[in-house]
């Protein structure tokens, strides 16, 4: 079953009068339950591709389909809803909100789904337990180590039982031990029903995926 599809997607960044093409006619289908790694050199457009897949960026040209619906024809609130219920993000820089406690960061997607606060906390603690951080639930991001911060970020991505988990260099800011823990967690926690896409420039991490694609010069090539 096709979960998301990119059709002839182009992305061009403009710096003043200069246009920098990043993605050049990407066609890409993602099926439910896949584990895909996207590799490529720095500046190849890996993150841009992931952002477009995650509906947080728009292509300059081409279409993005999610559940067969064209995202380009959706309103902003429809896109937000689609993200909030179906897509989990894990960023290289963790992107936790410093003013919120660990459990509040994890519960954030539920907050925007309109789940009652008590339920939010219950679910957040459950997920934090799965990532082994329940005892750090009331700590602020500044009080956590880098590895712990990324585990909180994973918990936040997984709390909605997403159909699609997008991880952008999830171990980029971590040492090898913590990297292994994070990858293991992602692979264990992402269920058979979910799709996991990891963007990485590390061949060892890429090789763990069932499918690897390379992004070179703005175009996708099977590895």
């Amino acid at each position, binding site marked *: 079953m096709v979960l998301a599809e990119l059709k002839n997607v182009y992305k061009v960044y403009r710096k003043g009068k200069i246009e920098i093409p990043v993605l050049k006619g990407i066609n890409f289908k993602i099926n439910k339950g896949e584990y895909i790694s996207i590799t490529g050199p720095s500046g190849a457009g890996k993150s841009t591709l992931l*952002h477009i897949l995650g509906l*947080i960026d728009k292509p300059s040209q081409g279409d993005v389909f999610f559940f067969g619906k064209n995202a380009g024809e959706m309103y902003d609130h429809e896109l*937000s809803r689609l993200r*909030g219920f179906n897509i989990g*993000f894990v960023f290289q820089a963790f*992107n936790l909100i410093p003013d919120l406690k660990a459990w509040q960061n994890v519960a954030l*997607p539920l907050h*925007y789904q309109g789940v009652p606060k008590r339920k939010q906390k219950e679910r957040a603690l459950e997920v934090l337990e799965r990532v082994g951080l329940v005892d750090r639930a009331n700590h602020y991001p500044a009080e956590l180590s880098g590895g712990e911060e990324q585990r909180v970020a994973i918990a*936040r991505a997984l709390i*909605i039982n997403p159909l699609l988990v997008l991880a952008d260099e999830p171990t980029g800011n971590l040492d090898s031990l913590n990297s292994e823990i994070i990858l293991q967690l992602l692979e264990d926690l992402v269920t058979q029903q979910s799709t996991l896409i990891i963007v990485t420039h590390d061949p060892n991490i890429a090789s763990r995926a069932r499918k690897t694609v390379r992004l070179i010069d703005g175009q996708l090539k099977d590895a």
Partner: protein
Amino acid sequence: MNVVKASQIIIAASSIALSSAIFTLTIGAYQTSQAELSKLLDDINNNVLIVQRDWTVSSQVTPDFEREIKEYAEQLDGFDELALSAGGGRSTNKFSYYSILVTPNFFTVRNYPLHKGRIFASGAKEAVVGYDHRDLLGKRISVRGFNVHVVGVLKPLSRRGGPDRLVDGTVFLPYDIRGLTTPVEVFLKFNDKRTMEIAYGEIKNWLHKMNYPYTVGVLAELYGLKIRKNLRRTLGGALLGMSLIATIVMLINLYSSSFTLAIHRIREWGIRRALGASGRKIKFEAGLQNLRLLIIGHMGGAVLAVILNPVFEYFTDFKVTPTLFAWTVSGLLILTISFFSISPVLSWVGQQPPYLAIRGLATHIPRARNFMALIILITGIAALNVQLILKNSIEKHTEFMLGNLANDVAIYSSFLYLKQQSLTDPRGAAPLNYSDFLALLNSALADHLDAVSYVDNYYIFSTKSFKSDIQFFLRAYEAKYPELSGARIVLGRWPAQGRFETIVGSQLAQRMFGDNTSAIGKKLKIFGRTWTISGVFQGASRPTPGTAASDQVLILREDLKRTLPNGRGEIIVRKKPNVPDKIFEEIANFLTARHNSSDYRPVNALRRRDLAPELQDVISRLADSYSLLSLLILVLATLGIFTQTIINLRFKIRELSIRRAVGATNTQIWLETLIPATFLATMFAPLGALLGVAISAVVIKAYQITWNIPWVQVALSLTISPLIISCAITIAFKIFANKSIVEQMRTE
């Protein structure tokens, strides 16, 4: 983010410019008014006492008065010279203008310079004329039975106001042209102000001792000098107060902007420090950046002051010429004061460790700016409330001064009303009488009127019922007068017809009987008949045409049963709703036509705004100045709140993008930001209102205005802050929400 950086620079520069413009205009206004006042003091001799005939006292003046006052004045310290005037009147021949007999030195004592020709010689059949009659120079004219040769023309002087208002249309004849005469006014010039002030008391005592029916006063005060001084003091205070409020807002805006600009450059400064720049050097560079901003803002302020000047003058009729001196002083002031808002930012910049700065990070970000946004808000609301309360209080005070005369009422008076401290000159005014009133009632004009009344006015010099010799004004009125005059009953009731009752003003009641209550039931002997006091009313605090003043006595005209020869009539009308104001002019024409003679001035409708013009002048200028300034401050405050909102969102932009990435809609985030901010704004707005009330209380106490708070408008002003905040947040959101999540995430 260039848009944010640019908006910070624009907001900070425009705040400085606005503040600088207000300061420049304030100083300019002060300079202009001081110069005007000094010129007036130079124009009128400031060391002159005026001894005037008191017509309310019936004592006779002996022919020796002129000689005796001369002899007395000559032995006073600092006495310089004495001038006389007498027998002012209107010509009844073809030259219908005011003439007065004066001694030749009158012109130097009063400082009336010549435009052309010369001053007449004592006793000569010659005349000097005011500027309006300059065509008569060299001609022979017949004035009050004297055939005189016009030998001189005075410069235009009416603009000096006060007692000089009629000078341009006056013919001056030699004091002794008709032989022996009694002076109406004696002008005593002294060498300096101090000796004049000492002489004032001595002459007052002397007049009292000699029982001469004259009063002594300071000539300069007839020009409303006290009022003019008060006007300038009030306006100066108002402008200065508002300038300070504007400066507080400007300082906060400057702090926020310089702080934001510092954050923009923190990475650059980190690199510079890593390359060897000292913390002091970095602080200097940051200071230089702010200094440039201040200079640009202040230069913009000069342009703005020039633009605002005609606007200010148009609204307030108050000259506020922005001079180079004013601009320089305001620049120095702003530069000095700005130190307090910039130095914490410079100190913050200097404290940032290079290892963090180089990564674009800071040890801490002061949260004071949120608190400052609230201060701006409170200041803006306070300024608005000061304006609202003062405007209302001044309006109330006008009511107190002029009586509660409605705006749809007009008065047609026999009196040529000038100013409180000028001589009231009935000559040449159409003698309105009861037959005019009846004619108006029977005319078609009456169909447009809701109510019409008539009052006869009489001077009463004393009555046997009074404890002491008290002079007062008696008004014999027609039935509708109580509702038209604006007088308000404070005790008892209006007189009932046929019972020979009277009602007295509260001021007079207190003078006569100690308090209002004691006045009720007391008897007064007026025109040989006994009248019982049925009530006490509160009217205007000073006598003006039409309005019943609190030192007057009212009786029903029908009870008087006659018209006395010295009565002067006033007709008071109230137009029906929806009838245009033109009706008042038509009535004036109707009454003028009934007394169509070149000897009389046309009958004019006096409206509320025509009474006590100098008071209205103060009121409108003060109120308009405050309105304009509070508007400017609100603009500044709004700019400041926009700055704060943009800064806050700018710092939160990354967080907002994360929230959007995990599923929040723009509307959800907007509401999450809007609700607490609007709640805070709503909670803090009453503080602003309270501050406004407190400032107004101080101003009202200082200027002894009647206190009056417009509660509804004050309550409405509370809605402004949440409104501004929500607009600011919404607009700032529009700026940021349009960016993609990825773009927002890349924001440092």
